[in-house]
């Protein structure tokens, strides 16, 4: 029952099971939240239990039933999927604690719907991480779109509703493009199972055809990954409650997009083919431009969450860039950034949320002096932002470092330049906040104190994790080993 092959299924069960329980216990909030926490914990446990197998290099396959001729609904745990699932499920725990504190702190309406959709999203995310072929991937990908929508419009204000419409207006067409791309792949290749190093090859069509398919794929997953010019839903979606932004727009949704890019480049097309049809340069340049532009735009944002959103867009492009460069180190960096950026960015969102719950302030210009009243929160904020800047000793450094190596390895020094530039830009839009927060004073905050432990504990935890990983990146989750496994399996060469 708990054999190796059934494990991926069990990873889906907790969050799936939580949905009806949450709905059933709508009347009794404490019990309801207990279900959420239990589900999060057990899910994380199930995922972690697979770590040894994955580290040994096993690829766990389990097929449920046939979806269409020659295509099964099947799950597959390889290093990349595992890494993503691990991040999502771990961060779900902290986010659930945080959400409980948050929704009670702000007395949100429809909390049941909120937690239920949250569980749905997690199911979808884990499904995306573990899907073994494109059709299964598409299934969970669209499911994620659907289940995120209620969270985006959660506040039911005009802004929230229009944000929701914008979200659908971007993601549904993207889903259709992905659908078309997958159908096309099915007709040309007759097979949709992910293979490390890609299953498409030049014999499946002319270079132009393959480039077109690749373009469709990139539009399909790129929207969620916020690659410019398909990014503009992301800042608007910040109308959602902060925990939603935190998990879904720093971890689940956007990361699902980035993850999709990795899957398509590494497991559908593969380095050789992408080199042959020359599609990788285009993708790399898109990513490079995005990470610069987004950082520039971030500077102009006064609303903290919007600034974080643009920084998210920028940092997702790190992953996309790493995927596009196709070299072992760049892939290592991409995979690592998937993990590290998640922890760092979620910390930042937690801080923003904590500040909002206490003071209802969203604009950076009003935050001067907040650091003196909420030292822990702002300390965590400082740590996380420094991490994103790429400050040595915090986790972000490791991933950026290997990305830099990767760009050199790929013989593309120009991207190294872009990375450095965006690091500088990161500094220029994060450091002022910290400076103002600590070294200015604002009498308005005299009666402000730290937020409730439900809110503070999670952000402290994530910040600590980032620091620990900054010193020993491989600790606990073996992130580096996994990243190297991924890079090796995809590019076929060893990194470093």
């Amino acid at each position, binding site marked *: 029952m708990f054999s190796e092959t059934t494990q991926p299924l069990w990873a889906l069960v907790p969050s799936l099971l939580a949905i009806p329980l949450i709905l059933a216990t709508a009347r009794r909030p404490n019990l309801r939240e207990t279900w959420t926490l239990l589900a999060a914990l057990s899910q994380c446990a199930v995922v972690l239990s697979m770590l040894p197998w994955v580290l040994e290099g096993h690829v766990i396959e389990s097929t449920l*039933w046939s*979806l*269409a*001729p020659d295509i099964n609904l099947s799950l597959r745990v390889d290093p990349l999927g595992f890494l993503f699932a691990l991040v999502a499920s771990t961060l779900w725990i902290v986010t659930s604690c945080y959400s409980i504190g948050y929704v009670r702190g702000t007395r949100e309406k429809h909390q049941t719907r909120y937690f239920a959709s949250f569980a749905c999203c997690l199911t979808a995310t884990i499904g995306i991480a573990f899907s073994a072929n494109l059709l299964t991937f598409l299934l969970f990908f669209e499911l994620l779109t659907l289940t995120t929508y209620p969270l985006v419009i959660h506040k039911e204000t005009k802004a929230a*509703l229009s944000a*929701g419409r914008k979200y*659908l207006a971007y993601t549904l067409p993207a889903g259709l493009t992905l659908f078309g791309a997958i*159908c096309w792949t099915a007709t040309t290749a007759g097979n949709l199972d992910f293979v490390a190093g890609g299953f498409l090859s030049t014999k499946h069509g002319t270079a132009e055809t393959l480039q077109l398919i690749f373009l469709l794929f990139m539009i399909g997953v790129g929207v969620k990954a916020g690659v410019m010019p398909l990014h503009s839903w992301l800042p608007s979606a910040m109308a959602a409650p902060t925990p939603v932004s935190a998990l879904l727009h720093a971890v689940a949704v956007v990361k699902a997009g980035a993850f999709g890019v990795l899957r398509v480049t590494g497991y559908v097309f593969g380095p050789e083919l992408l080199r042959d049809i020359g599609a990788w340069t285009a993708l790399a340049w898109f990513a490079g431009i995005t990470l610069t532009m987004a950082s520039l735009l971030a500077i102009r944002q006064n609303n903290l969450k919007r600034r974080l959103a643009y920084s998210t867009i920028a940092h997702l492009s790190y992953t996309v860039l790493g995927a596009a460069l196709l070299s072992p180190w760049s892939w290592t960096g991409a995979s690592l950034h998937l993990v590290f950026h998640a922890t760092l960015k979620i910390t930042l969102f937690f801080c923003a949320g904590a500040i909002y719950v206490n003071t209802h302030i969203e604009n950076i210009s009003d935050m001067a002096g907040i650091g003196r009243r909420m030292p822990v929160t702002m300390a965590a904020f400082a740590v996380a932002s420094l991490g994103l800047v790429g400050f040595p000793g915090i986790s972000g450094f490791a991933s950026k470092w290997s990305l830099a190596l990767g760009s050199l390895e790929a013989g593309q020094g120009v991207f190294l330049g872009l990375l450095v530039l965006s690091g500088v830009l990161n500094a220029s839009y994060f450091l002022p906040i910290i400076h103002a927060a600590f070294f200015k004073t604002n009498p308005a905050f005299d009666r402000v104190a730290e937020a409730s432990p439900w809110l503070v504990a999670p952000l402290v935890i994530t910040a600590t994790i980032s620091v620990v990983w900054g010193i020993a990146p491989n600790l606990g989750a073996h992130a580096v080993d996994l990243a190297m496994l991924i890079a090796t399996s995809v590019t076929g060469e060893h990194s470093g």
Partner: protein
Amino acid sequence: MTWSQLPILTPVVLLVGATAVLLTGRIRPSLAHRLATATCASCFAIAIALAVQVHHHGPTHYALGGWSPPIGIELVADTLSVYFLLVITGIALLVMVGAAPAVERDTPGRSVEFFAISLIFLLGLSGIVLTGDLFNLYVFLEISSLSAYTLVSSGDERAGVAAFRYLIVGTIGASFYLLGLGFLYSVTGTLNMTDMAMRLDPAAIPVRLAAVMITVGLGLKMAIFPMHRWLPDAYTHASSTATALIAPIMTKVSAYVLIRILFFVFGTSMVSIDLPIAQAIMWLSVAGVLVGSTMAIAQTDLKRMLAYSSVAQVAYIGVGIGLATPLALAGALLHVISHATMKCCLFLVVGAVELQTGNRKLSSLSGIGRKMPWTFAAFTAAAVAMIGLPPTGGFFSKWYLVLGGMATGEWWVVIFVLGASLLTATYFFRLLESIYTRQSSELAPIKEAPLAVALPIVILGLAVILFGLFNSRILDLFLRDAMPPGLVISG
């Protein structure tokens, strides 16, 4: 009485049921509904038994009056017809279960006749899918049409006009069919489908003309663009029960006849290679998809919106028929069952809403999702299926359609089909948004629909999803064997 008698049982049971409903209705009107439901249930059971038999022993031929074809009329229960028979009887059963209150409200004092006529309507449809004789098919076509006109006229003020328009169009369609049949008979001298398929010569002019006429006639009944004008009025003004009964299966059965005659009698090569009939159907259907979806966006009346989306969704089936490749046809057949389920679910929800609120304007629905959670959970599932998002049946029928389209290199069809689902998304998400988010005060006293009404809706909502997840089961159990000669689903 042996298992070999199964094919005839469905029509006979329905006929006897109808008369029984009338007779008992004169004494105890309350019995009528129970009796009708029981009849539908037994028909569903018979259909299942027949399906099992066909699955194990292959097609069943039944010679009426003991006269072997082509002398007499024969019923042929092969996989295709059994598939449709299951859809018809299943939908009918689910509609009947909760029909009592709505019918009593819409047609006070006449519910007995209503149930009798709906049973005869089902008799006509089941006869159509079972018969193996082209003229007999015409008779059953008229039985179902006549009762359909009557059911449609059972609605609001304008129902009469809508029904009359429907009657004129339907009769012309049937006459065209009969004329085409006349041509076929004049050159083959037979009326039996299999016999005719052997005897007709695809090159002969009358045969080709007959193909065109029959296609036009059935196109009218199937509401293929531009012959769809009767449908929105008919579905909008008919009483909610009548719509829920007619909308899911009537047009599907016309599609069945089209498939049966084009692919089984004329043969795939004739309709897709010698003549551009299939292509014509395909392009008209593509136009229908676009027009139907666009019109649906503009509607303010829930039923009318659903009616226009029916035009679009039936056109999907037309696209599948037109592409005439195995996968596309499988998509069309899969869409038959999935669209029947979702559209039936949606119309039943409309009926439940009318029952609880006495109103069906889109504006009046805001916030109702919280008042009737179960009903609208099912509604949401069905809506998602209409848009064609996974993991519902709608998604997979679209999947096969697109695969089929790509296989034949019909890129524009693929693009239009995909684009149309965006239009669908536009009006359904607008609807869902207002259903779940807006608050409105006058909804306060509204309760969830009674169990008998809500249960079928929920069942249908679940079915929509299950048909998606387990579509390959449907594919293996039915669609592979239901393929016309010469078309084989690979894999």
